[in-house]
């Protein structure tokens, strides 16, 4: 399992001040939801981010991961 391009959506809107809190993922807000986009090194890092969100009391609505450039693959939705 190698690097992943990751998109996580949580319910509710998080202020931009949380922008730096999630391992280099970019934070954007729309329609009452918050999106986190960016590259993660591997599954372990993904688990770490999901844990962090859980610890902050945030509800994860969806997450998709796509293997990073160089590999052919589809997205697996949670």
């Amino acid at each position: 399992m190698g690097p992943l391009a990751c998109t996580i959506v949580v319910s509710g809107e998080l202020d931009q001040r949380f922008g730096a809190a999630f391992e280099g993922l970019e934070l954007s807000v729309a329609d009452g939801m918050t999106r986190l986009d960016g590259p993660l090194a591997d599954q372990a890092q993904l688990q770490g981010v999901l844990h962090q969100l859980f610890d902050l009391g945030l509800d994860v609505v969806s997450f998709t991961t796509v293997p990073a450039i160089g590999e052919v693959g589809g997205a697996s939705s949670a």
Partner: protein
Amino acid sequence: MPRPTDPPAGRRSTDRAHAGVIETKLAPHRLPHGSVSRPALLEQLRHGRDRALTLVSAPAGFGKTTLLTEWVTTDRERVFAWVTLDASDAEPVRLWTNVIASVAARRLSVGVGSLPALRTNPDRVADAVLPILFDELAAVGEVVVILDDFHLASNSVVNAQVEAFLRYRPAQVQLVIATRADPSLGVARLRASGELVEIRADSLRFDESELASFFDGMGVKGLTPSDQRRLAERTGGWPAPLRLAALLIPADDPASFIDSFTGGSRQVVDYLTRDVLDLLEPQTRDFLLQVSVLSRLSGALCDAVVDTTGSGAVLADLERSNLFVSVDSAGEWYQEHQLFAEALRLELARTRPELVPVLHRRAAAWFEAAGDRETATDHAIAARDVPTASRLVAAQVQLMASTGRASTTRRWLCALSWPEAERDPELAFVRAVAASLDNRVDLAIGYLDLARTGPPDQMDAAGLPLAFRADFMESLVGVTQVGRAEAAGLRAVASAPSSGWEGIALAGVGQALYLQGRTSEAVDVLRRAIGQIPDANPIMLAIGFANLGLAESALDVPSRADPKLDELAGQLSAIGAERSPAGALVHLALGERDRRNGDLRGAADQFGLTIEILGAGPRTAWLANAYLLLAAVHRDLGDPAAAMADIDHANETLDRLPDAGNLRDRSARLAEQLVAPVRRASEFGEQLTDREMDVLRLAAAGLGQRQIAGQLFISYNTVKSHLKTSYRKLGATSRDEAVAKFALLEVGPNGIDGSAASPG
């Protein structure tokens, strides 16, 4: 029923101190102001009495801890043992010491047997410790064990042990687990068989009447029923945002706040980082941000970390204002609510990141001065302070290894994984010590090489230079590459800072010489060594004397070590080191002593013990040596098949060792002797039978007839008869003559040479 009294100090508190027990974790904090009583849920908890597990599982901020605290404070007839778990309780010895200590605080007789059992059998909690604990619990009546924040301590080892606890505990023990994530304890199976009581998020949500009492209790007036309903809908009855709302609702205009609160979609944690903090005075805000690096807070600790005074009063005020801070029953230790603490940490990292390592450093210093080295280490690592972390881990590594807590050392060393930490020579030395205590010899040698890249004169806490430490450690431990070990030992001797340390280094050199078959040199060096090693170091004394015993036995002379070996074995036992490599060496030396005294069976037993101890570890020259010595004894006992098997075992190990001294030669010679045709007494007439040869061999070694009978498991008369017949066959008229003629026969193709481990 016995009345609870204060726990005694002394022995038990030493066990607890060694296992990092923190008293404030062993009781619930005080109930927050305005908390709502939930009698229906309490009733459910009580029903868990007859079930295997009571589970309270919900995300942060649902009031799990509050509910359990209400139960503990209102149910006066029951005995509760509470443990608030944290990440360091993922290590079994610490976890179970906490559990036992918590019960012992209410029922003194618990822990008397189980704590020592935990100390001596840290790797066998389920089969060696829990049964004793269950007996102790069975004798003291009903008790409820509550483990709060279980998700922080959960891992596969702990889960297996807790599962064993809940399966085999005495019926009058109720186990309650509060957690944010369902633990993997076979919960589904328990649910299916009706052995589970569970309270989940849905049950913990406030209903309308609870909501009303909640706002009443928080002192929020003037909310209409419709206001309350809107808040209830927006939050789903989740207590955490409701407490937020209660804090933030302005008394003069609740309606517009409720509008924005219910209309918008900001997250709770968002409110916590902005609105709640905005409520506070700047000074208090700063204070909270800075102390967020701590997981538990006291006035004194906060004073040190924030570099101020009066923190005690600030904390008390915050607790009274219900600002997500709770306090323990003694009013000394506080804890922030987890969501709040997370929000604060984020805010601190965002606004003042350069302050974070400074705060952790101050915390590390405070905890170390207060005697809590473990928490100090966590903070030193968080501060990325490599020298302090290295010093602290070095000071704890031996004790942790000997009390079964090596997983904590491993956790620390793993956490020290950024580039500076991975390259640090002192830390590399600590890693080498940890690896050698874990019996990972080649890993230890690798780390020692890294340690040697540091300044050679750099001192540790005991004033020993780094180069010396690396060299003497390698000479003692590096028994997979014996030549290197000798070279390291010689360097250590040259740089030893004192006569005692020189003695210790000489022991390492002597050991390497013996393993290379340079036996007389080894004897000289080791005799010097034992004269210099301080008495206060029984492990090094044992290594020195055992090696001397082995070397002198190889020369077949009585050893100066002989009278000391039993005493040394006793000393090692007294410090719990009888199964260490030093202990194994002592058994090896005892075996050689037995062999020289003619007690071959005794020797075989001792060697067997050595192999049992060493076999559990990595393959080293020591293990191969033990097998070779055993092979020689089996040969002398007339069991060539066993001897060949021993040689095969030795070779298995030798094949993997880069440099095993002269052990390969010895192995080859032994094998040849076993296979070589024994010249029979054909020139004297009839051939000797195998059994007659065996008896003669022992007689040649100086054994009397009764001893020979004992060694070969035959009767005294049979021995006499064999001897008579063999004298006749050899044409000898006395035992001495028979022995002399026999010696001529037994000279194999390689002769008898002084570097063999036993007479050929």
